[in-house]
């Protein structure tokens, strides 16, 4: 009898919270449409290769060149014979354009701007260009920051063109074989990350913010002045959040399936396991964050303090392997990293239970730890 009563209570709490959630129009936009738009934007931006533009400054030695024989300058010869001259606009110097066609790597367009050394340095500092070329004794000198990978790439491509005796307007790249195996594209990397991020965002913003708001409205205080079981209230919030996250993730996946041909290569029940563990982890964290404050602005700050570092570190948009080596083991233990890597491994590496068991266990443990300590210090009044 008692059990039936409690089930009715829990059912009503879940129902009420579910209605409350889906009746908020923002939920549909931020939970469903926004992640889809983001995947669409990023997916297109990183899958279709546009022409890459590289700006180079050419130092003008008006005096010397006029005095000696201008045709002996290799740079001048290249610019005059192979590039298109663009008439200067305003006080900008003369500019030349040279495009290397490349079907496999994408086209590269070089803009050569004739300018003084001082002017070139200003443009370099502003980030308008990354390489400055000059010529001394028929030798081309390249000036650039060796720590800037973009400048290095410009140098490599440019030197290849300039050092060759014959200038080819198109690269053949016969030895490059583009990978078309599914799971190796950027979008394959991105979608699992977006799903993981969606779970984190929706737990923290949806649950924490909701709890803090109910405390501010004195609704929590009113509810615990009844025989309601406190744990039922929190369980109802978690259940609704997991259902919503499932719907949101499923819609994002369906979208990616049809638009980008994303597939799940690994074990689907394993995917459910890591998904559920991720939800438990972030729901626990959400309850912990919102256990005390009655101020939505403090709540905002707390949520951001948790969300922002993980967004940057956890390799959602770009791999975290670019961070310093010593930091990688720590980054890999962050809940969002665990979840994103776990989902990604099932999606694109074909992982099963064995590969995700550690992450699933750790995420569940994190969730239980934060939930139980949050419940201990939870302020209902």
């Amino acid at each position, binding site marked *: 009898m008692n059990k039936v009563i409690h089930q009715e209570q829990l059912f009503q709490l879940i129902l*009420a919270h579910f209605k*409350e959630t889906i009746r908020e129009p923002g939920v549909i936009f931020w939970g469903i449409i926004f992640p889809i738009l983001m995947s669409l934007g990023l997916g297109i931006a990183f899958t279709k290769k546009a022409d890459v533009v590289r700006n180079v400054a050419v130092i003008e030695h008006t005096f010397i060149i006029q005095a000696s024989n201008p045709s002996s300058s290799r740079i001048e010869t290249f610019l005059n014979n192979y590039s298109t001259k663009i008439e200067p606009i305003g006080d900008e110097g003369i500019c030349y354009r040279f495009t290397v066609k490349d079907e496999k790597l994408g086209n590269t367009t070089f803009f050569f701007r004739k300018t003084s050394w001082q002017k070139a340095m200003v443009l370099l500092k502003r980030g308008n260009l990354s390489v400055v070329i000059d010529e001394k004794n028929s030798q081309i000198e390249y000036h650039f920051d060796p720590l800037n990978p973009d400048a290095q790439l410009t140098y490599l491509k440019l030197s290849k063109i300039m050092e060759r005796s014959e200038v080819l307007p198109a690269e053949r790249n016969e030895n490059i074989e583009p990978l078309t195996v599914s799971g190796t594209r950027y979008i394959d990397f991105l979608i699992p990350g977006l799903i993981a991020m969606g779970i984190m965002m929706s737990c923290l913003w949806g649950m924490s913010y909701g709890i803090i708001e109910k405390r501010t*409205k004195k609704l929590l205080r*009113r509810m615990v002045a009844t*025989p309601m079981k406190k744990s039922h209230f929190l369980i109802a919030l978690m259940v609704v959040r997991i259902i919503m996250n499932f719907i949101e993730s499923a819609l994002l996946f369906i979208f990616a399936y049809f638009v980008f041909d994303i597939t799940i290569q690994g074990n689907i029940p394993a995917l459910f396991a890591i998904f559920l563990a991720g939800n438990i982890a972030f729901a626990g964290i959400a309850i912990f964050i919102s256990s005390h404050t009655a101020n939505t602005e403090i709540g905002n700050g707390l949520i951001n303090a948790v969300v922002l570092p993980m967004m940057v570190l956890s390799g959602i948009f770009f791999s975290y392997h670019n961070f310093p080596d010593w930091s990688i083991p720590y980054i890999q233990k962050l809940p969002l990293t665990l979840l994103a890597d776990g989902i990604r491994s099932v999606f694109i590496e074909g992982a099963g239970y064995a590969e995700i068991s550690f992450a699933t266990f750790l995420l569940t443990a994190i969730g239980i730890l934060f939930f139980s300590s949050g419940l201990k210090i939870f302020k209902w009044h």
Partner: protein
Amino acid sequence: MNLLDMVTTDARPVIEVQGVYKSFKTVQAVKGVDMRIAKGQFVALLGPNGAGKTTLVEMIEGIQKPDRGEIFIMGKKWKGNEDELHRVIGLSLQETRFIDKLTVWETLRLFASFYQRDQKRVSEIIEIVGLEEKRKSYVVNLSGGQRQRLALGIALLNNPKILLLDEPTTGLDPNARREIWSILLTLKQQAQTSLILTTHYMEEAEQLCEYIIIIDKGKILKEGTVTQLLNEDQGEKIIEFVLEDTHQVQDNRHINFPFQIHWDAKNEKGSIAFTQVESELPQFLNFIKEQKLRIKNLECRRKTLDDLFTSMTGRRLHE
């Protein structure tokens, strides 16, 4: 004399508060309060804002713990009896906001499930608080009065033996206030529920409650039935007057009125308490005539709880 002493049957009080103190960081909110409330009794805690009414009620509700003193509800302490006591108490907090996007019916249904009440009870409550036409409206779209009626409805869901209402009509217009009063008066006739109501409206206390506790600065100033409280002053009458030229009044402040006057500077109104209005009023009028003052308005009325409060504290209930 406590009203309880007159009740012979069911002698054990429903609520008993013994020497309760409560302090917050900077204020001592409640400073030694004793109270006993009998079954079916309607009691008003009347006092201005910040008098400690809410703190006292929240301690009875079990939301706050007293620093010192004891509170017994149906003879039981809160500690260890939370679930049982929550089932016999109905309450409305000062300004609770419910879930915006739930309907009236859904909100009541949710709270009913906490008390194991079914949909039939929800329908009954909707009828009692007169929200039939609003049952499918979202809470966010209700007027202030409708929201308070919903809060009252939630408080009544479990047929509470004890009803604790914290300022149920503050901020409502007179019509909305009367609607709440009529619901509570119906409940009073059934004589099954004891009520503690906090208010700073003396009309509300007088209309609804047979026993009134006047509270200020965390202490009980005076308590009793309305008649007991007002008759102690032997049927005093209050006259209030406004003079034609207010500057004259300001200029003539140094003139010694032969009466004790309470000046309401904001409304430029003077008031005097007369025990023998028939003989004292002509004296007052003569004095006005001698001073060559002109009266713009003159009213004579019975003494109210507000006047009683003013005579004890020098402030008015609404200040």
